[in-house]
């Protein structure tokens, strides 16, 4: 039985796909058989971020429509054999995903994988609903910014009421806060909501803080999940997230403004 993790947010562009790529690769690096599924039908992008866009033959919707088998559609990651990617389709048909179809695919994935990471589209429409419906855990990706925090709270309401677990009266989905694009400098200047502020408002367990980082664009440019950039702040922050998720106690980093060395103080901005 796999554990199903949804990466969700409500608001668009906050870092869900970046996070899905990073945590699925992170789980694979820790030796767990992991599948990452792109639920953003019509706006497939996970393949690009994972660097497997030229290897897409069949997609999620083909499998749902039984035009291809799951094994034909799954792309094995070239860097880590534990990791497989199920790309979204580029169809413009909004109804391509069905609850029964998604359930069937997730059940089949459950037979061979330890973790299934669902990259949710933005919004609260069908794709976002189905991405979270079957989840056991939810990583709520939030930027320290008013509309993102509000949408995250809205999403928390949906996770608590519109999921399979809620409808069957089972234990609720475990919700985790992942604060991304965090800038300690701007927090210090009083220009950006702090980790404490966001936690106070959302009252969620903090899985991690990912700093605003140049490494993220470099990683997406080259199709490499940023977690593989071990020297980068964002890569390290995502690795901490994985270890925390798997139960290790790892203190939070990248929350305080880094003190510059003498060189930085003399020549930095």
């Amino acid at each position, binding site marked *: 039985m796999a554990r199903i993790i949804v990466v969700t947010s409500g608001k668009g562009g906050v870092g869900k796909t970046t996070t899905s790529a990073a945590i699925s690769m992170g789980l694979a690096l820790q030796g767990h058989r992991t599948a990452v599924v792109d639920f953003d039908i019509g706006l497939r992008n996970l393949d690009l971020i994972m660097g497997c866009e030229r290897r897409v033959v069949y997609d999620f919707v083909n499998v749902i429509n039984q035009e291809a088998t799951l094994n034909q559609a799954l792309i094995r990651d070239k860097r880590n054999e534990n990791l497989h990617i199920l790309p979204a389709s580029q169809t413009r048909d909004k109804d391509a995903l069905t609850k029964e179809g998604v359930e069937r695919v997730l059940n089949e994935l459950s037979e061979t994988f330890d973790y299934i990471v669902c990259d949710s589209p933005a919004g609260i429409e069908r794709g976002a609903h189905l991405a979270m419906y079957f989840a056991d855990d939810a990583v709520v990706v939030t930027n320290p910014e*008013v509309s993102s925090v509000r949408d995250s709270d809205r999403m928390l309401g949906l996770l608590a009421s519109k999921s399979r677990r809620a409808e069957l009266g089972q234990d609720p989905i475990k919700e985790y806060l992942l604060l991304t694009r965090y800038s300690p400098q701007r927090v210090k*200047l009083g220009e950006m909501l702090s980790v404490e502020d966001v936690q106070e*408002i959302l009252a969620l367990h903090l899985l991690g803080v990912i700093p605003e980082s140049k490494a993220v664009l470099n990683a997406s440019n080259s199709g490499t999940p940023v977690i593989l950039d071990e020297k980068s702040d964002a890569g390290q922050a995502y690795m901490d997230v994985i270890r925390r998720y798997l139960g290790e106690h790892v203190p939070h980093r990248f929350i305080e403004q880094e003190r510059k060395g003498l060189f930085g103080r003399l020549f930095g901005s």
Partner: protein
Amino acid sequence: MGLIDYFRSSRQPTAAIAKERLQILVAHERSERSKPDYLIALQKELLDVIRKYVHVDQDAITMTMEQDDSREVLELNIVLPDESERRPMHR
């Protein structure tokens, strides 16, 4: 960052404003969520009825639903305008 910017930004800690606005908004939206679905429609219809007789604003009416083991209490609170501002729509 220039000196002027520095003083300006330290005088207006916008993050604090953001936090306060969010706290109010999120508390409001959570209480809306916990209401049964029909309550919003009921609130709107009641408001329409009241407006046939008195001129009141959208926010002049508040409705709360409280629940304990044995009963549910629906509390309706309407703030009527001053005598001078009242303008009856019907007679």
